[in-house]
C-alpha cells in the first residue's frame, strides 16, 4: 500500500508550552513528523506556541505559526493555509483536544480538512471512560474471556457529587477518581476517606472539560505495565515495547520508576497483555499510528485489568522509541500518509522492515525528576496525578547497571546509593514506615530498609507491592556493598564485579574511604584497565547488523565503537528536565550539532565535524539517534563523560584521525558547565569559554573586581558563611537583600529578605553553607526594570548582541518566570547603548568564546549588573526565533574557532547590525512563562501559592509574536493560560504601595465594561477615583455572605489582580488564599503592576478582535530584509 497521493499539505499541531505531563517528548515526536512529511514532498504547516522547540525552527516546516494552540487561532491558520489534512496525534493531549474542538465546532468540515492518524470516534472511544470499558469488554469477549467484565476495574462514570457518593457507597473505599479529557492525570487521585472523596472528586469534575469523572475499584498495589503499539491501515499491529513500573499501581506512570522490557512476566502472561492490547486497539479503531495501553496485573492471581489507552504518541512512546531504537513518531507519520509497516525500513538495520517487534538485549530504566523543593507546602506524596517535571533514562546490560546509571543521572544531591549519609536515626522500623508513602527517591529507602535488616517480604509489603524480583536485585547490591566494605583490598575481581553491577566510582569511594575519593577509585580502575565498553541499541538483540551508532556503556567484554578519522566534537546535553533547566538547553545543543555537522572542520575541508551527543534525557530531540552523528545515552557525570571521551578519542586516533578536538559544555546549562574544570584538568579539550573564565563569572569576588575595573555598576553585595556575617552585610548595604547560594541555576534557594529574623531563618535552613559554598547577599533593587541580554563574543573580542529583552514584571521575579518583550518596549536608545557598552566590557573581561547571558536592572535611569552567565541561557531559542538569528549555532562555531566576522560573511549571522539594532517596525515578541501551580496541592488538599519570586517555578514558556505589544501579549496569554477575558468580573486586591499605580489599568478595565470587585482598602481607593466597584470582604475578615476566596472558587470571576501586601514574609501569606483559590479555579491571576498593565493592553487587543496569524518564515524574511 503506497502512500496516499491526495495529501499535498498537512497541518501538524504541536503541544505548546512544557507543562508537567507534557514535555519536550512532543517536540521530539513533532520534529520527526515534520521531517518525514517534508521528505515525502508534502507541504507542512505547523502551529506551536513554544519557541524553545526544534520543530518551530523555520527549516522544519513550510509555514511555522508560533501561535496559541487554541481552536480560535488554529482556525485562523487553517483559513490562511487551507491544508488537506491535520495530523493531531503527535502533539500530546493539547493537539488532540484542539482537533476534537475544531471538529465539534464544524471548522474541519467548513474548510474540508481531513483528520489523519486518528479519527474522532476512536479518540472518543479511547478517552471516554464508559465507552472504553465497553470496548475492553468486547475485546475480551472476542479473545474468549469467560467474563470480560473482569478486564476492567468495576467503576461508574459520574457527572455530579451525588452520583459520586452513591457509587462509592457500592464500591467501598478506597476508590480512584479520574476526570475525563485531562492530561497527565490532572485532577485524578485516590480517596481513602470520605473527605478525600469530596475534595478530589469535586476538583476532578471541575478539571474535566466535560464535567465527568470516573469512580473506580482500587487496584492499588497491583503490578503496572504499559505496551506501546503501532497499527497500519492494513491492520498490521506490532508491539514496540513493554514497560513495567517498579512502583506498583497507585503512582502515576510518569512519576514511577519504570523498566523496559517487562522483567517479571512469563511469556503466557506477556502474550495475554499483547493479545488484549491488540484487540483493544482494533476495537477502539485507531486506524494508523501509535497507541499506548496501560494494564494492572494482580500479583496474587494474575487477573489483568486494562486501565487506559492513549490513541496517540505519548510520553511513554518517546521513552519506548529511545529504549528500543524504533522511532514511533516517525513511523506514525508515515503510517498516517498511507504507508504500511512492511513498506517502511527499520531505521537501524536499514535492511529489515519496521513490521516487527524490537527485542532488547539490555535493560532500560527511567527515573522521574521532581521539583518539590520549589513548591514549599506542596504534598510530596506520589499519587495518580503526575508531579514530576522531567526524567532520565539509562541503559545497561543488567537491571542494576541501568538503575545505578539512572539514579546518578538525576543530578540530585545524592548520586546513587550510599553517596549521601543515611538520615540521622534511621532504623529498620522507621525506614519501613517511610516506605508506606510513595515518595521521590523511594528506592533509596528500599535499599536502606534492606541494609538495616528488613527482608524482601517485609519491604514488598511495606512498599505496597514492589515486585520481589526488583527488591532482590537491590538486595544483591546490599550484599555486594557488604563485600566491598569488608574486603581487605579492592582487587580487580571485586572492582570488576562492582562496576558490572553499575556502581559509580563515587559510590565506591564512599565505601572505601582509603581510596582518596572518586579520583582515587578511577586511578585504581584505570590502572587495572577496567573500563566500560559501548554496546549498540539495534532493535534486534544483535540478530542483524546495526548501522546507527546509538551507544550505551556497560562493563562487559566487547566494545562496538567504530573508529572514525573525522575530527569529533562532543556536545554535552543537559540531563533530565527540571525547573530552571529544560528544553531550551536541549534546543541549543541540537543547534550545535546541526551547525558543526555542516561546518568546515578545517584541514582537508571535506565535510563537517563528527558530532557526538552525550545525554540521558529520553524526551529530547538531542537523544534522537538521527540528530548527531553518534549518540551516547549516558549520565552526565564526570566519570561517565570522561569514559565516553576516552572511547571516542582513542578510537578516533586509532583510525588515524585527530580524535576528539573539542567538548562543548556551554550549551547544556549548568550540568555540563559544572564539569568543565574537571574535564579540562583531566586533559579533555573543553572548547569555548574556558573553565577559568566560567569561574571568573561565577565567583562573586572575581566578578565584582572585574566590574569595578571596567567601571560597571552592580548592587552592593557580600559573601557570608554564617548568620552574623550575613547580618553585617545586610546592615551595611541595607534591606531588602537578595540571598542565594553560589553556583545555582533557576534561582534555586533564592529569596528576597526584608528583615533580620527572615535572614536568620534563611541561613538556618541553608544547611550546606560552607566556606566553599558561601551565601551571596545582594542589595535588592525594588521597582527596577529588569533587562536580559544574550550575546556572542569571539576570540577577537567582537561582541554580537543577540537580543535585549525587557521584563514585564519588575526585578525580583526570577527571569525564567517573568514575561518579557523583544525588542524592549520602553527602553530609550541611551539605555540600549549603555547595555551594549556594559555587555561588551563584561564579555571581553570574562573572555567569553561563545554565548553570554547578562541580567541587568535599570533603576532610576541607572544600569546595574545583576549577574552574568557565560553559557547558553534559557532565552536563546526565544531570541533566535524573535530575531531570525541562530545564536546557539553561532556559539558552537565560535567555540571551535570561528569569528563573528567570518560568520557574518558566511551568512550565519546578519551581514550588519545585531539584536541591539532591531528595525523600528520589527515585530514584538512576548515570552510568557507557564507555571505548574495547579498540579500541586498541600497535604490537606488546598491549592498552593502562586506568588512569584526570585526562585524560578515555571516549567515552560510560550511566545506571542505580532506587530504590536498588545496583540503579542494577548497571544502569549492565550497560549500560556487560555485567553484573557473580554468581559465579566475582575477581582482586585492590591498592596497599598501598588494602589496608586493600579488605578489607571483598573479604570481602563472598568471602561471596557468589566465589573470590578475589590477588597475594602482597594475599593475605597478605586471609588475615590470614580471607579464603580463592588466591595467584598477578605476570607479572614468577619462578616456575612460571600468572601473573596469563596467567590473565586465559585467560578464567578474571570480574572484576579492581586499584588502582595506589605513586605517580607507577610507578603507571602497575605494574598495566599486568594491566589491559591485562583489556581484551584484555574483563573488567570496577575500578581504585579506591570503585569496588570500588559494584561489591559492584551484585553483591548482581544476586544478589538483583529487577531491575525503570520508564519515565522514571513516574519523572518521581513526582518532580514530590514537589516
Amino acid at each position: 500500500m503506497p502512500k496516499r497521493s491526495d495529501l499535498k499539505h498537512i497541518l501538524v499541531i504541536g503541544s505548546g508550552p512544557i507543562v508537567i505531563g507534557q514535555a519536550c517528548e512532543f517536540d521530539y515526536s513533532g520534529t520527526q513528523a515534520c521531517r518525514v512529511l517534508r521528505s515525502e514532498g508534502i507541504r507542512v504547516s505547523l502551529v506551536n506556541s513554544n519557541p524553545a522547540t526544534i520543530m518551530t525552527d523555520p527549516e522544519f516546516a513550510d509555514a511555522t505559526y508560533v501561535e496559541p494552540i487554541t481552536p480560535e487561532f488554529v482556525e485562523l491558520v487553517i483559513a490562511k493555509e487551507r491544508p488537506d489534512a491535520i495530523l493531531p496525534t503527535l502533539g500530546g493531549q493539547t493537539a488532540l483536544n484542539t482537533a476534537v474542538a475544531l471538529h465539534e465546532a464544524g471548522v474541519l468540515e467548513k474548510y474540508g480538512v481531513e483528520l489523519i492518524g486518528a479519527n474522532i470516534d476512536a479518540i472518543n472511544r479511547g478517552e471516554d471512560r464508559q465507552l472504553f470499558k465497553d470496548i475492553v469488554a468486547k475485546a475480551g469477549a472476542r479473545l474468549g474471556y469467560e467474563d470480560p467484565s473482569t478486564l476492567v476495574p468495576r467503576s461508574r462514570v459520574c457527572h455530579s457529587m451525588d452520583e459520586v457518593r452513591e457509587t462509592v457507597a457500592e464500591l467501598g473505599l478506597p476508590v480512584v477518581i479520574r476526570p475525563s479529557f485531562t492530561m497527565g492525570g490532572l485532577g485524578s487521585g485516590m480517596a481513602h476517606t470520605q473527605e478525600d472523596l469530596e475534595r478530589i472528586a469535586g476538583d476532578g469534575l471541575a478539571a474535566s472539560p466535560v464535567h465527568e469523572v470516573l469512580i473506580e475499584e482500587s487496584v492499588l498495589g497491583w503490578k503496572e505495565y504499559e505496551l506501546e503499539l503501532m497499527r497500519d491501515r492494513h491492520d498490521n499491529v506490532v508491539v514496540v515495547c513493554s514497560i513495567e513500573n517498579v512502583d506498583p499501581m497507585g503512582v502515576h506512570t510518569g512519576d514511577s520508576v519504570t523498566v523496559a522490557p517487562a522483567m517479571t512476566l512469563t511469556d503466557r502472561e506477556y502474550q495475554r497483555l499483547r493479545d488484549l492490547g491488540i484487540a483493544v486497539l482494533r476495537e477502539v479503531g485507531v486506524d494508523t499510528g501509535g497507541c499506548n495501553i496501560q494494564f494492572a496485573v494482580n500479583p496474587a492471581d494474575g487477573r489483568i485489568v486494562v486501565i487506559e489507552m492513549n490513541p496517540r504518541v505519548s510520553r511513554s512512546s518517546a521513552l519506548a522509541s529511545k529504549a528500543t531504537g524504533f522511532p514511533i513518531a516517525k513511523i506514525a507519520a508515515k503510517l498516517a500518509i498511507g504507508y504500511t509497516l512492511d513498506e517502511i525500513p527499520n531505521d537501524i538495520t536499514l535492511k529489515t522492515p519496521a513490521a516487527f517487534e524490537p527485542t532488547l538485549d539490555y535493560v532500560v530504566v527511567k527515573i522521574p525528576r521532581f521539583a518539590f523543593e520549589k513548591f514549599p507546602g506542596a504534598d510530596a506524596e506520589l499519587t495518580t496525578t503526575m508531579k514530576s517535571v522531567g526524567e532520565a533514562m539509562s541503559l545497561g546490560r543488567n537491571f542494576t547497571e541501568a538503575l545505578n546509571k539512572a539514579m546518578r543521572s538525576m543530578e540530585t544531591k545524592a548520586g546513587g546509593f550510599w553517596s549521601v549519609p543515611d538520615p540521622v536515626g534511621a532504623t529498620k522500623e522507621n525506614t519501613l514506615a517511610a516506605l508506606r508513602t510513595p515518595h521521590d527517591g523511594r528506592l533509596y529507602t528500599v535499599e536502606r530498609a534492606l541494609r538495616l535488616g528488613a527482608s524482601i517480604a517485609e519491604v514488598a509489603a511495606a512498599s505496597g507491592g514492589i515486585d520481589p524480583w526488583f527488591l532482590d536485585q537491590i538486595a544483591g547490591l546490599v550484599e555486594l556493598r557488604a563485600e566491598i566494605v569488608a574486603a581487605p583490598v579492592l582487587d580487580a575481581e571485586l572492582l570488576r564485579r562492582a562496576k558490572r553491577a553499575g556502581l559509580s566510582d563515587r559510590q565506591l569511594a564512599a565505601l572505601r574511604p582509603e581510596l582518596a575519593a572518586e579520583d582515587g577509585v578511577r586511578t585504581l580502575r584505570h590502572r587495572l584497565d577496567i573500563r566500560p565498553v559501548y554496546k549498540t541499541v539495534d532493535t534486534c538483540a544483535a540478530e542483524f547488523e546495526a548501522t546507527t551508532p546509538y551507544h550505551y556503556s556497560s562493563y562487559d567484554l566487547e566494545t562496538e565503537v567504530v573508529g572514525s578519522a573525522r575530527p569529533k566534537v562532543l556536545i554535552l546535553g543537559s540531563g533530565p528536565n527540571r525547573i530552571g533547566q529544560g528544553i531550551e538547553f536541549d534546543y541549543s545543543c541540537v543547534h550545535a550539532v546541526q551547525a558543526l555537522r555542516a561546518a568546515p572542520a578545517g584541514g582537508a575541508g571535506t565535510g563537517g565535524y563528527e558530532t557526538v551527543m552525550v545525554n540521558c534525557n529520553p524526551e529530547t530531540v538531542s537523544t534522537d539517534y538521527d540528530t548527531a552523528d553518534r549518540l551516547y545515552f549516558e549520565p552526565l557525570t564526570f566519570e561517565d563523560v570522561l569514559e565516553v571521551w576516552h572511547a571516542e578519542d582513542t578510537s578516533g586516533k586509532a583510525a588515524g584521525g585527530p580524535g576528539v578536538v573539542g567538548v562543548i559544555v556551554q550549551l547544556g546549562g549548568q550540568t555540563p558547565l559544572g564539569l568543565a574544570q574537571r574535564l579540562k584538568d583531566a586533559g579533555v579539550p573543553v572548547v569555548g569559554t574556558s573553565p577559568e573564565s566560567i569561574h571568573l563569572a561565577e565567583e562573586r569576588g572575581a566578578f565584582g573586581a572585574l566590574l569595578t575595573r571596567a567601571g560597571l555598576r552592580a548592587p552592593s553585595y557580600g559573601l557570608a558563611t554564617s548568620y552574623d556575617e550575613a547580618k553585617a552585610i545586610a546592615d551595611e548595604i541595607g534591606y531588602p537583600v537578595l540571598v542565594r547560594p553560589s553556583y545555582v541555576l533557576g534561582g534555586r534557594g533564592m529569596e528576597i529578605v526584608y528583615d533580620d529574623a527572615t535572614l536568620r531563618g534563611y541561613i538556618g535552613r541553608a544547611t550546606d553553607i560552607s566556606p566553599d559554598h558561601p551565601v551571596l547577599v545582594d542589595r535588592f533593587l525594588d521597582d527596577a526594570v529588569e533587562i536580559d541580554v544574550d550575546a556572542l563574543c569571539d576570540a577577537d573580542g567582537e561582541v554580537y548582541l543577540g537580543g535585549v529583552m525587557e521584563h514585564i514584571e519588575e526585578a525580583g521575579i526570577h527571569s525564567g518566570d517573568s514575561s518579557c518583550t523583544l525588542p524592549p518596549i520602553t527602553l530609550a536608545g541611551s539605555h540600549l547603548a549603555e547595555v551594549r557598552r556594559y555587555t561588551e566590557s563584561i564579555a571581553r573581561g570574562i573572555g567569553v568564546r561563545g554565548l553570554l547571558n547578562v541580567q541587568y536592572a535599570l533603576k532610576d535611569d541607572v544600569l546595574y549588573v545583576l549577574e552574568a552567565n557565560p553559557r547558553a541561557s534559557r532565552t536563546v531559542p526565544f531570541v533566535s526565533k524573535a530575531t531570525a538569528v541562530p545564536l546557539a549555532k553561532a556559539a558552537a562555531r565560535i567555540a571551535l574557532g570561528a569569528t563573528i566576522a567570518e560568520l557574518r560573511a558566511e551568512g550565519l549571522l546578519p551581514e550588519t547590525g545585531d539584536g541591539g539594532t532591531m528595525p523600528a517596525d520589527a515585530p514584538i515578541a512576548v515570552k510568557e512563562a507557564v507555571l505548574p501551580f495547579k498540579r500541586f496541592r498541600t497535604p490537606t488538599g488546598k491549592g498552593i501559592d502562586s506568588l512569584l519570586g526570585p526562585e524560578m517555578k515555571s516549567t515552560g514558556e510560550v511566545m506571542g509574536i505580532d506587530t504590536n505589544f498588545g496583540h503579542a501579549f494577548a497571544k502569549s496569554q492565550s497560549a500560556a493560560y487560555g485567553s484573557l477575558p473580554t468581559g465579566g468580573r475582575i477581582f482586585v486586591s492590591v498592596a497599598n504601595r501598588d494602589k496608586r499605580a493600579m488605578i489607571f489599568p483598573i479604570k481602563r478595565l472598568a471602561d471596557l465594561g468589566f465589573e470590578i470587585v475589590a477588597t475594602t482598602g482597594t475599593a475605597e481607593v478605586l471609588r475615590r477615583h470614580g471607579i464603580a466597584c463592588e466591595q467584598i470582604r477578605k476570607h479572614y475578615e468577619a462578616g456575612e455572605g460571600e468572601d473573596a476566596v469563596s467567590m473565586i472558587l465559585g467560578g464567578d470571576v474571570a480574572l484576579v489582580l492581586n499584588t502582595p501586601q506589605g513586605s517580607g514574609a507577610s507578603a507571602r501569606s497575605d494574598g495566599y488564599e486568594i491566589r491559591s483559590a485562583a489556581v484551584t479555579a484555574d483563573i488567570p491571576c496577575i500578581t504585579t503592576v506591570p503585569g496588570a498593565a500588559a494584561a489591559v493592553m492584551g484585553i483591548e487587543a482581544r476586544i478589538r478582535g483583529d487577531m491575525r496569524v503570520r508564519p515565522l518564515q514571513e516574519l523572518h524574511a521581513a526582518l532580514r530584509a530590514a537589516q
Partner: protein
Amino acid sequence: MVKRRPAILVLEDGRTFQGEAYGSVGETFGEAVFNTGMTGYQETLTDPSYHRQVVVQTAPHIGNTGVNGEDDESSRIWVAGYVVRDPARIGSNWRASGGLEDRLAAEGVVGIAGVDTRALTRHLRERGAMRVGISSVEEDPRALLARVRQAPEMVGADLSAEVTTAEPYVVKADGEHRFTVAALDLGIKRNVPRRLAARGVTTHVLPATSTIDDLLATGADAVFFSPGPGDPATADGPVALAREVLNRRIPLFGICFGSQILGRALGFGTYKLGYGHRGINQPVLDRSTGKVEVTSHNHGFAVAWPGREQELSAVQVPGAGSGAVVPDQVIDTEFGGVEVSHVCLNDNVVEGLRAKDVPAFTVQYHPEAAAGPHDADYLFDRFAELIEGRALGQGRSEGRALYRNQSEGGN
C-alpha cells in the same frame, strides 16, 4: 552478584568466553545458537527442537519468573547447554513452583552465566552457528576446543528418534469432538495438540517411526507433522510417509521440521541457514492476504526457494529479497502446483508452503507460539477448515496427474 565457580565456553573456531558455572557443573557440547526472545525461557528450554543445541539467550535476565508446572512444552529440558548473562537470584511469579537454576541442576543441564552474550551472538551472526563446548570442570580452553571439534555436527544429524514419544498417546478435544488428527511426533510441543483441542480436534500423537497404517489406524481425518530437531535431509522415513499422505489426499499440516518434511516430499531442497531464526519477533508475510504477522521461530534449516536455490537460499542475508525479487508463482511438482505461502520479511526465507492440488500446507514457524505471539494462531483454523473440506475446494481438484512421478520416489 554472588561469586560462582568459573566456567568456560569455547566455540569450534577457537573463540573463548569466560564465565561462571550455571545450572549443573560439568561439561557439555552442542551447536551454539542464539534466541532473541525476551520472554519464554521455560518454553524454550523444554522445546525438543533445541535438542543438541546450546542456547544463548540474548535477553540479559533469565529466570526472573522461576519455573512453574504449566509452561513446559515437553516432559523435560532439551537444550544441551545454556548460556545467559545474568541469572535471577530468585524467581518471582504467582505461578512459580521453583527456581530455574535448581531445575537446570536437577536435570543435569550445564550452563554458563556472566558471558557477554551480545558479543557471542554477534560472533555467531557473522560466522554462523557452530559447535560449542561449555565446561565448569575443564580450565584449559585448548583441551575443551579439541573436544568441541570432535562433537557431532548438526548437518546430517538425524535426531527424531531421540526426541519422539516412545508410545502413542491421545490428547482429547476440548468440548465437542469434531475431528481426529494423527500427529507424527518428531519433537512435538505440547501447545500444538492444545491449540488443536481448542478447535474440537482429538490428537493422536504417534512415534516418529510410525507407518501410514499406524496413522490410518487412528481413524485420523488429517495428519500433522510436528516440529523437531535435526537435519531434514536425514528424515527419509518421515518424508516417505508424507508422500504417502499426499498420495492419499489426506489433509496435511506441518510446522517447522514438519514443513521441511513436506518440502522434501514435494521434491524441494532444504538447506542450513547461516545462523537461523530463533526468536519471537519475526515478521512473516502471509502472501495470500498481504498481512504481516509477528511470529515465533526456531529453525536452523529451511526449504530452498524452489528453482531459485542459488540466488535466494545460499546464505542468510537480511534484506536479500526485500519483496520485489520474491518469485510469485506456482511451482509444478509431482503433487501438482505448490506456492510459497509465507515468507520472512527480514531475509525472504521460505516460511510456508501451500499445495494447490492436494490438501496440504505447512509453515516453517510456530503458530502454536509458546513462547511467542499468537498472531499465527489462525493457521489452526485453516487446518480445521481444510479438514472440514471447506478449504477453497483446492484439495478436491482432480485435474492434476497426482501420481505421475511416483516411481521416482522421494529425495
